[in-house]
């Protein structure tokens, strides 16, 4: 029962959270969440009805609360009609969230802590793969049941998972290697187009790419191949950015990568064979939740192994001082090349996933706005950190969804929040933190 990190300023809240959750291992949390989502599936609708909520809160109540607040703001700003009675939804939503999520999590987590710790300790001696699979299986079960409640949740969850992959792959270049690469949406675009070209061109009748060449009922088995091709194509495109990076760094590389982004976007806009500015539609719906979950887990696993390897540590050396790294026999060219190709590969895979989730791509999706979004996720979550990327992608995605009722005001709230984070934690929320699977799933 040891505290993992010594706290710098032990606030009251932090201490309370620690006493509540401190002795619970990850296994216990996952069990708790499993009970939560099962409870919501069984009791969510009746409870929401009982609490006089219009419907079950979909996103941990945040969406419901921000909808009420948006109504309030609208009535102040534009004089729209506002029923003060809807204000009661805010405490009701909080009650709902604490009854469905918080209380079961604490209760089950605490009750099962002893058993979960024993199980975790038992699994410690096994090969890492087995406990990891157990945890991932539990996690998938939780997500699956949670997302099963509505299509909205499913789409949000899928896009969030993809965002994790994109953020992490950009973190390899921007965080671990310390470049400021702006080309990531371009890599995603390449991945999305190439994988769509493969799947739509071969298996689907499309107005853009012509009739299906192969008619097969097990075509979805080739989806990994499509993703792989997308990733490889994106990595090949990354050569265009990686080779100039031998000679130059920092701002000039930022521009080269930015120019690359514009070139890719313009290229796809102008190739009429790929639908031009209208893009390609009608991808087969192969980005199911298990596929995305598996690919993202694979991506996180690969990335974590990469950045903790010797080659990965060389990334940090290149970032901190390229000359010194070279003097210490780090092959900087190889390092830079590997990092760019690696990051671009996973961005391309993520692009393929996005294409088959939205089932529609066009060049405008991969522009400056996408770049700002991905950069925001990386720098919000934290540089040089797998945890940070996950936290950044998840929190910006959920924030974006939760604040949707605020409409245009959302684009003032989110940037302001990011500015504040940048001012008070310039490297992001959870920067420079190693991710160790063995420690994450170990007993407390």
């Amino acid at each position, binding site marked *: 029962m040891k505290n993992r990190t010594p706290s710098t300023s032990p606030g009251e809240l932090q201490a309370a959270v620690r006493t509540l959750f401190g002795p619970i291992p990850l296994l216990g949390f996952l069990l708790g969440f499993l009970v939560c989502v099962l409870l919501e599936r069984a009791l969510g609708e009746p409870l929401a009805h009982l609490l006089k909520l219009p419907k079950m809160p979909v996103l941990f109540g945040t969406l419901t609360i921000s909808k009420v607040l948006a109504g309030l703001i609208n009535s102040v700003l534009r004089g729209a009609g506002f029923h003060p009675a809807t204000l009661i939804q805010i405490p009701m939503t909080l009650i709902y969230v604490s009854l469905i999520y918080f209380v079961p999590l604490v209760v089950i987590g605490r009750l099962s802590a002893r058993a979960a710790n024993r199980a975790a300790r038992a699994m410690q001696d096994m090969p890492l793969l087995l406990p990891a699979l157990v945890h991932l299986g539990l996690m998938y079960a939780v997500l699956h049941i949670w997302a099963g409640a509505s299509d909205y949740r499913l789409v949000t969850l899928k896009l969030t998972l993809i965002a994790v992959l994109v953020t992490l792959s950009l973190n390899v270049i*921007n965080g671990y290697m*310390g*470049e*400021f690469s702006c080309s990531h949406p371009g890599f995603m675009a390449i991945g999305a187009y190439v994988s769509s070209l493969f799947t739509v061109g071969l298996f689907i009748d499309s107005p853009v790419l012509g009739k299906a060449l192969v008619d097969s009922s097990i075509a979805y088995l080739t989806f990994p191949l499509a993703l792989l091709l997308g990733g490889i194509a994106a990595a090949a495109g990354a050569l*265009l950015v990686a*080779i*100039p990076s031998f*000679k*130059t*760094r*920092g*701002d*000039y590389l*930022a*521009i*080269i990568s*930015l*120019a*690359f982004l*514009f*070139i890719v*976007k*313009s*290229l796809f*806009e*102008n190739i009429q064979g790929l639908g031009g500015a209208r893009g390609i539609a009608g991808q087969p719906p192969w980005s199911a939740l298990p596929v995305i979950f598996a690919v993202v887990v694979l991506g996180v696993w690969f990335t974590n192994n990469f950045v903790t390897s010797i080659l990965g540590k060389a990334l940090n050396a290149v*970032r*901190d*001082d*390229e*000359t010194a790294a070279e003097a210490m026999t780090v092959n900087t060219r190889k390092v830079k090349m590997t990092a760019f190709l690696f990051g671009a590969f996973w961005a391309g895979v993520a692009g393929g996933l996005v294409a088959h989730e939205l089932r529609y791509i066009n060049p*405008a999706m991969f*522009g*400056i*706005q*996408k770049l*700002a*979004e991905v*950069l*925001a996720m990386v*720098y919000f979550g934290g*540089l040089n950190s797998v945890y940070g990327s996950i936290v950044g992608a998840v929190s910006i995605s959920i924030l974006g969804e939760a604040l949707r009722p605020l409409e*245009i*005001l959302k*684009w*003032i709230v989110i*940037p*302001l929040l*990011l*500015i504040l984070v*940048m*001012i008070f934690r*310039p*490297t992001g929320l959870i920067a420079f933190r190693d991710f160790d699977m063995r420690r994450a799933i170990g007993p407390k």
Partner: protein
Amino acid sequence: MPFPAPFPLPPGEHPPMTLGFFIQNIINALQWGSFYALIALGYSMVYSILMLFNFAHGDIFMVGAYIGLGVAIVLLKVVGTGAAALMPGWAVLVVTILISMFLTAFVGIIVERVGYRPLRHAPRASAAITGLMIGIILETSNVLFLGGQRLHFPQLVQSQTYDIGGIFITNKKIMIVLLSVGLMIALHQFVARSRWGMAMRAMAYDIVVVPLVGVPINTIAAMTFAIGSALAAAAGILFGLAYPVLDPYMGVSLGWKAFVAAILGGRGSIMGACIAGFMLGFIEIMTVPAIQIMNRLFELNIGSNLRDLIAYSIVLVILVFRPHGLFGEAYSARLRL
């Protein structure tokens, strides 16, 4: 994220190919390049001093254009239009530009104070993020307060077309090019001759030691932002003069391209930013006739909207062979992480 609307492109219709046609295009390119050059100056000056790119600069350009719109409308109300006007159109234009430059300078100062000063010792990438976010806030506030529809910039100057041996030049184009070149020369004089300019140059030379001898770093930084924003405001009004439709996202596209021009010019080089701005405008405008000629000669069918592709490919090639820009010196850029 809100999606940037396409900004008005330079005129696409062209008369048949003669020498006059080329001169015509060169004049168009000068006009288009002067927008880039004026905006690029703001990026470049901030960069030379703080080693940071002000990513909100494109949106400051947009704010400048809108402030210019407001000032112009008020001025036209005061002065009156048509024959009863108290001032000729060009005088109104100059006054509008001066007032808007003054007002937009404060926008720049606020941006520096809010987004950049707290991050002076943070990693540079963090400041880039705050800049991007301030840009989004500026765009969104514009949509919020002005409703997001495109607004018409009032015609301050009656358009006149001169026909010089088959070459058609409008008085607006001449005015735009002359005014922007004048502003560039004024800036150069200021930086090269004045005391403040000397402080700026010193700060660009060494940001660690120069403040130790008593040059106020915050004042200089704020002044740099103010000057850059003022130039962006001038560019915004001149842009409104040429393409009189303003929309909240006009700064995104133009701003990023000007940013590319600033880098292309070389690290913090004022001269470089101007020349690279004109060059980028030149490349963008001249691609269209070049493609037309190629199509005619080789009977190809290349679309003329390959403009961006070709322009950025040229930029990429230039940067591969001159990694530090056209006028930049080799230096080792390290992210202060």
